[in-house]
């Protein structure tokens, strides 16, 4: 698959075959991601890491991925530190940064910001999350983690639980899993269910998702339990947040009903959705999932910037 010089803005831009080729390359990146082997294939390249919204894992894993491949990084971590705070448009910021680097990674609070950046930038742009919109590299690392844990992505029973309305990771993930014939169960309070727009889209692709508010009812069916944080910062009304905060909390007693090989994932950060006691169980894959951001992003950087492993 030819990823050279391509933008990665939405998971919808990728076919199943393209996703699989990135996951295969990510697998090859594992020994380099851990530092067991060394490769400087992107030496001389510069990554522009623009994070206009708080992020720990995504930002650091892109930096780590770049450094592991010998690529230099210039970065912005706060909007207040940029000319955007002086009234500069994002379009102008992008055109300026584009001149300083070979690839732009953008995290931005407004939906569609990455598409705008891709339109104004000559160099490729990777969307690292735009508002409640897309976060395609998170989806890729989620798929990578599932494939690593379960051996295959085909036909998995995946239960998505928590904030399915504002949680951008689950929107892209649901769409991507549909490409692999997954059976999806959507567990959320009625006010936080998956938007109709996304549900209709995955139905058009042949998926028939089941919606419920009860996690207990579906726990025994899951191959993968994908838990998300109910995101206080995305609620327009704090009172609405209080009504649903803490609705789902996974602990060891709940897991008695789960299949022995069921895996729990979470895009992190977590607040109280998963009790710390679960961390030691065989089910817990969320820290591995966070690490997997490095090999997956290494694969993307390498493929887009034309590095050969």
């Amino acid at each position, binding site marked *: 698959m030819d990823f050279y010089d391509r933008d990665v803005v*939405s998971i*919808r831009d990728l076919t199943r075959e393209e996703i699989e080729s990135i996951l295969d390359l990510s697998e090859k990146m594992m020994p380099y991601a851990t530092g067991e082997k060394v490769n400087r294939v992107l030496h001389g390249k510069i990554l522009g890491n623009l994070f206009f919204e708080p992020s720990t894992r995504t930002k650091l894993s892109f930096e780590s991925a770049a450094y592991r491949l010998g690529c230099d990084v210039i970065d912005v971590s706060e909007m207040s530190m940029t000319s955007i705070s002086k009234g500069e*448009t*994002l*379009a102008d910021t992008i055109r300026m940064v584009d001149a300083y680097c070979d690839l732009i990674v953008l995290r*931005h*609070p*407004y*939906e*569609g*910001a990455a*598409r*705008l950046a891709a*339109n104004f930038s000559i160099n490729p742009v990777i969307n690292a999350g*735009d*508002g*409640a*919109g*897309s976060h395609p590299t998170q989806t890729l690392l989620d798929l990578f983690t599932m494939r690593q844990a379960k051996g295959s992505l085909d036909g998995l029973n995946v239960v998505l639980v928590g904030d399915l309305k504002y949680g951008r990771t689950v929107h892209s993930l649901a769409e991507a899993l549909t490409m692999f014939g997954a059976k999806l169960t959507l567990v959320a309070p009625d006010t936080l269910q998956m938007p109709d*727009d996304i549900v209709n889209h995955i139905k058009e692709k042949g998926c028939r998702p089941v919606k419920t508010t009860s996690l207990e009812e579906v726990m025994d069916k899951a191959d993968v339990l994908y838990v998300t944080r109910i995101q206080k910062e995305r609620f327009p009304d704090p009172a609405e947040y209080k009504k649903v905060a803490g609705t789902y909390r996974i602990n060891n007693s709940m897991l008695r009903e789960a299949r022995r090989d069921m895996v729990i994932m979470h895009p992190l950060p977590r607040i109280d959705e998963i009790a710390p006691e679960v961390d030691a169980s065989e089910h817990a894959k969320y820290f591995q999932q966070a690490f997997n951001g490095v090999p997956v992003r290494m694969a993307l950087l390498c493929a887009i910037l034309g590095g050969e492993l």
Partner: protein
Amino acid sequence: MDVKTIKEIKLAPIRNGTVIDHIATGQALNVLKILGVNEYMDSTISVGIHVSSRKSAEWKDIVKIEDCELDQKTVDKIALIAPDATISIIRDYYVAEKFTVTLGDRVMGLAKCCNPNCITNKNEPIETEFVVISRRPTKLRCSYCDRALCNISDNLL
């Protein structure tokens, strides 16, 4: 008096101007909004809402605007809310031109995204862009934020 004559009395012919016919029932008022009809208009405008169609058994709306020919942008906006509309340019009581509006695959700069958090609503130097995902009924998806456009007539620019 036959039905045809009665119809002509309901909505009189115009000497010069434009007839927008086969508008989906209920959309005539939105067409007037697109035309920018207000109290300062010089043109005479006739509106027929829920009138019978000679072409089919269905009902339709019709708008006649005198001494005015529409620009392409206005025609494109009408196509968004009335995809079956026909436009007739009338000169000296005769139909000088007649065509059906067409909706392309992409809609540029005609509507704003209904997502307030979409980058296209944030004073960036860009034109809005939507992909047509359905034609009957018309459904558009924002090319920037991927959100389906809700209530097209309320979001026309």
